[in-house]
């Protein structure tokens, strides 16, 4: 009796598990399926599941609707540039906060923590005015510079720098290694897992960002992929959902691919956030 009860419960639980997973994954699957349908099939009601004939040219149509090569390149430059800059500013700051004693340290670190909490959406207007005084609006710099330092990155790196044993650093100092060299050739390699985690977080976040490029750019040469994709909506009047979904796949696919391979790191990266 009891045995049967658990089996029944296990079956129900299994079905529920699949249902829950579907609720979160199915929309993506629907994006994928729509991206391969013809227009008449998209506007068929009730909808069909699998495409009747797989339309690969939707991707071509999406890609040709704007300078997508430029968008992709800009997205890489922006997300990559931000990451490099964040590491260049973050590593020394984290090293100082982790390994030195100096006046005002607590207060300065508190300032860094505060910067973790206020989102860009709240202060975009003054930053826009500031950037326009410097003549940087509508350049890639306007997309990169405001994110040049990451409080979250400093926070994470500091944690891992503090865990490096004193002996390692003492030994390096006895060998007359400069502080700068110790930082980049000893501390940084030892913090590799954290660097990967942070790198994924930062890259994905800025790859996906829509708000900042929307506000700061107004010409195609400096726009990023999310903007290009969102403009598909207006292509040729009516909504060509198959082309729009194909465009979305161009944006989503790299991230899903990374997620597939680096799931653990990515989940950790996003969940560590200010923990």
């Amino acid at each position, binding site marked *: 009796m009891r045995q049967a009860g658990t089996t029944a419960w296990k079956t129900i639980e299994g079905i529920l598990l699949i249902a829950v997973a579907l609720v979160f994954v199915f929309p993506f699957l629907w994006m994928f399926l729509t991206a391969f349908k013809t227009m008449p099939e998209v*506007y068929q009601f009730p909808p069909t599941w699998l495409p009747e004939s797989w339309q690969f040219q939707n991707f071509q149509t999406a890609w040709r609707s704007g300078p997508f090569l430029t968008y992709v390149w800009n997205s890489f430059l922006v997300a990559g540039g931000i990451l490099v800059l964040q590491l260049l500013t973050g590593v020394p700051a984290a090293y100082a906060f982790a390994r030195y004693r100096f006046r005002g340290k607590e207060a300065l670190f508190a300032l860094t*923590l505060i910067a973790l909490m206020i989102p860009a959406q709240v202060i975009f207007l003054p930053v826009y005015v500031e950037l326009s005084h410097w003549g940087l609006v509508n350049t890639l710099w306007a997309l990169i510079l405001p994110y040049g330092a990451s*409080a979250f990155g400093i926070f994470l790196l500091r944690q891992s720098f503090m865990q490096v044993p004193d002996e390692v650093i003492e030994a390096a100092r006895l060998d007359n290694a400069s502080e700068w060299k110790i930082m980049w050739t000893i501390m940084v390699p030892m913090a590799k897992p954290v660097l990967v985690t942070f790198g994924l977080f930062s890259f994905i976040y800025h790859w996906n960002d829509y708000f900042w490029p929307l506000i700061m750019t107004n010409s195609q040469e400096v726009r990023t992929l999310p903007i290009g994709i969102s403009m598909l909506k207006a292509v040729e009047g009516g909504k060509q959902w198959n082309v729009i979904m194909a465009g979305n796949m161009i944006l989503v696919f790299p991230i899903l691919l990374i997620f597939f391979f680096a799931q653990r790191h990515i989940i950790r990266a996003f*969940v560590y956030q200010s923990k």
Partner: protein
Amino acid sequence: MRKAVAMREIAAPEPGAIAGAGAKAGMSDLLHTLRPYLYITPALAFFGAFFFFPIAYVIYLSFFDWSLLNLEEIEWVGLANFGEVLRDSDFRQVLGNTIMYTFSTVLLGIGIAFFLALWLNRQAKIFGFIQAAVFSPHIISLVSVAMLWMWLMDPQYGLLNAILEFFGLPAYSWLADTNSALLSLILVSVWKVVGYNTIVFIAGLQSIPKDIYEAASLDRFPWWRTLTRITIPMLSPTIFFLLVINTISSFQVFDTIYIMTQGGPVNSTNMLVFYIYEQGIDFYNGGIASAASVILLGMIGVLTMLHFRLMEKRVHYR
């Protein structure tokens, strides 16, 4: 996953901190003292230029009448912008929408995630897959999420209405109806945030010491008592963290509004950041936009302070 790392580490003495005891005198001593400052200067310069200065600047700008069309022409108006914003019935609706949206998103997002976490917190591989599936919307660009849901919510050809029809229910004009547009945006944001919250809860659950549960089972605690006496109190830092983070991120909602509804129909989905965007960038009302920014800043500032207060407290009783 570690918890309350931040404050605990601040309180701890720095391992291997370098006291200024270097034997070399003069220049190198000075360098020794200055070095940490040199190391943090670049990062602080960026925070200064793109975070602290803008905060001060937007407060300053909120006392002026100005527009992006001509930044030279700016006129002192004192508190007039705030008066105008608060009298604006559109803005009051925006505030109401924001609060409604935030409240529902946060409550549903955390509530659903809590039960999912209790259920999905298991070691078997299949649970790992389900956790990843639930989490996946979190790493997808909001642009894609917004367009995807627009398609799902398409009144004539969308999948959601097809499903309703399959069950014999009437079709729904998700985003076109003033009664349901805001609810539709709430649905999308709950869908996107639940996975993140679930994983954070699971991390919290895993950090609860197992022996507490063993003691409870020895004492023959019923499950609900274990839940209310052990699990929920032990998770309270996690719950609080999620409350703050979710509230702040709900305040910033913009992408879905911009792509899916443009604040409509009839202002029913207009919220703070979109209002600031419209006033500042579309209508060239810099003063009004700045005043609204300051109000939003104040709301987030209060939350942030509350957060740090409670985090500090947590350190003491740990």
